[in-house]
């Protein structure tokens, strides 16, 4: 008796389950596209048309030119504030503007003398993330202005921003790899754990276990279709990301496929671990969501930077597989990272898979002897 034929029988049946059930097809193919569109258009992290109030005490061609630079940018919509300087806070309180630009009387004079000159930028930091982004936009514009005019508008600290890899700060570059990480882990971990616990619930797993098939053959046969689905999904999101949001592909295709496979294996091991532990689909679903969806969204650096988390959560993030895959995917797609530059991440995912798989196999065979 060949082992392969038994494994193929399991895999084939699993494909049939997916194909016969329109709901699972929707979960696998429509959900990722909806998320892509949601993240792409609704959760746009770029900020545009920020209201900017200008108080120009200089009123010179030089100051007008600086203002024009802001007006010319798609990020700002500029208006002149004519009120008293002492009432400046009202602009923020009434939410008339997020940022105020104050140009001193001696701006043009200093500028012509080529001595250091200052402008004042006030940013409403009620939303600190937005404030940081706005501040960075300003630095960019001022740096350009300095470059063009040889001027020296000093900034709070000496920065010369050169934004590499993603010069336009496109957030699509950021979330498309994140979405791939999320979808891959959900398909691999959640769907496999559901598929196995469903057979426990209906009693069909027992029917399979009275046949001469080995646990490892069941496991391989069960997960194989989901590996294929995960790949199709990853490919779908990447293609749509490249077409709709112009996400680049700087690195090696082969390397991305290789390391995605590793990540999928890690996620599958997690799903198998869950299904070896629980008996019902409902519990499996809850465990899968808390072990995949939440950490991947919250703790992987997908949306919130890990560096700005409380130190305890930073430690927790080390056991979130998506954290490593995000670095891998962003690195390969956007920076063109090579294998050796991703060595640590590869090692971390490999270790996680091995530990999870060993525990799962042990649990599976223990369950049979229960």
């Amino acid at each position, binding site marked *: 008796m060949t082992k392969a034929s*038994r494994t193929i029988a*399991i895999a*084939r049946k699993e494909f049939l389950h997916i194909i*016969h059930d329109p709901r699972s097809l929707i979960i696998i193919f429509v959900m990722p596209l909806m998320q892509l569109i949601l993240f792409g258009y609704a959760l746009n992290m770029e900020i545009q048309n920020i209201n900017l109030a200008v108080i120009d005490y200089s009123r010179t061609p030089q100051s007008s030119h600086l203002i024009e630079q802001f007006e010319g940018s798609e990020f700002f919509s500029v208006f002149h504030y004519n009120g008293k300087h002492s009432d400046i806070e009202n602009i923020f309180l009434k939410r008339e503007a997020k940022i105020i630009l104050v140009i001193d009387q001696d701006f043009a004079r200093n500028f012509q003398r080529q001595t250091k000159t200052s402008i004042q930028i006030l940013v409403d930091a009620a939303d600190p993330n937005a404030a940081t982004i706005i501040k960075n936009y300003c630095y960019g514009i001022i740096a350009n202005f300095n470059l063009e005019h040889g001027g020296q508008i000093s900034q709070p600290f000496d920065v010369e921003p050169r934004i590499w890899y993603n010069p336009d700060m496109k957030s699509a570059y950021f979330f498309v790899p994140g979405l791939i990480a999320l979808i891959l882990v959900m398909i691999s971990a959640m769907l496999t754990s559901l598929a196995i616990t469903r057979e426990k619930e209906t*009693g069909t797993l*027992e*029917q399979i276990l*009275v*046949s*001469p098939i080995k646990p490892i053959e069941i496991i391989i046969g069960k997960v194989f279709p989901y590996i294929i689905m995960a790949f199709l999904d990853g490919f779908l999101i990447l293609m749509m990301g490249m077409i709709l949001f112009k996400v680049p592909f700087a690195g090696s295709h082969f390397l991305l496929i290789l390391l995605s496979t590793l990540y999928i294996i890690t996620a599958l091991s997690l799903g198998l671990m869950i299904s070896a532990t629980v008996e019902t689909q409902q519990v499996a679903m809850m465990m899968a969501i808390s072990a995949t969806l939440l950490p991947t969204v919250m703790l992987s650096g997908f949306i919130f930077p890990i560096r700005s988390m409380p130190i305890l959560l930073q430690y927790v993030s080390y056991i979130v597989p998506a954290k490593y895959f995000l670095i891998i995917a962003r690195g390969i797609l956007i920076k063109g990272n090579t294998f050796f530059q991703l060595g640590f991440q590869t090692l971390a995912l490999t270790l996680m898979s091995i530990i999870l798989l060993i525990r799962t196999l042990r649990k599976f065979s223990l369950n049979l002897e229960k």
Partner: protein
Amino acid sequence: MIEHNKIAVRTNKLTRRFGKFTAVDQVSIEVKQGEIFGFLGANGAGKTTMIRMLCGLLKPSAGDATVSGFDVYKQSENIKKNIGYMSQKFSLYDDLTIQENIEFFGGIYGLTKEQIQSRKKTLLKEVRLTNVEESMTRDLPVGFKQRLALGCALLHDPLILFLDEPTSGVDPEARRSFWDLIYHTAEAGKTIFVTTHFMDEAEYCHRLSIMRDGKLIAVGSPGELRDLYHKSNMQDVFIEIVNGE
């Protein structure tokens, strides 16, 4: 080629404990090849645990057992090749067609495509299901599903068939035709090991064993048991045994 002297299943003081609870307590039985051997007992008497140990789904805590001559501790792989199993739930896939179910169960026993095709034809005729291969299993009436499950359990031509309350939830008419099938299968030389709590079904068995609280209380043909307990039907025998002396 029915060798009636050959032993299909033999257990010697077979025991299974779950923690402090003893589900099966030192049960010794012998089942001959070609026999329809009934296993009776109230719910929780240990029938299912007994079957699960013999099928290799559960390791015994103590005692010995051989199935088709193979040891349950060391040769479970060989046992699994030679037995068919059908549980109280119809363990077929509702969302697959009948054809797909048959191909799947043939596949996990390592049958080739040709073997599955030829077995499928004879089996569907045997269980009296024709022209339904493309139907979804969920659309079949319960009686049909149950016959199909039996067909799938027989696909790899096992020597011994374990049926765990195969007729629960089926109407009397369907039960009747199911038992016709069981007789037919036994005549072909297969050993049938069946648990039930229907007393009319008990009468159909060649030999019976009755369990209570994990212990084997009585073994014999329906006639022998009736005589032994001086009752006119199995129902009364069963009630007497289950309620205790």
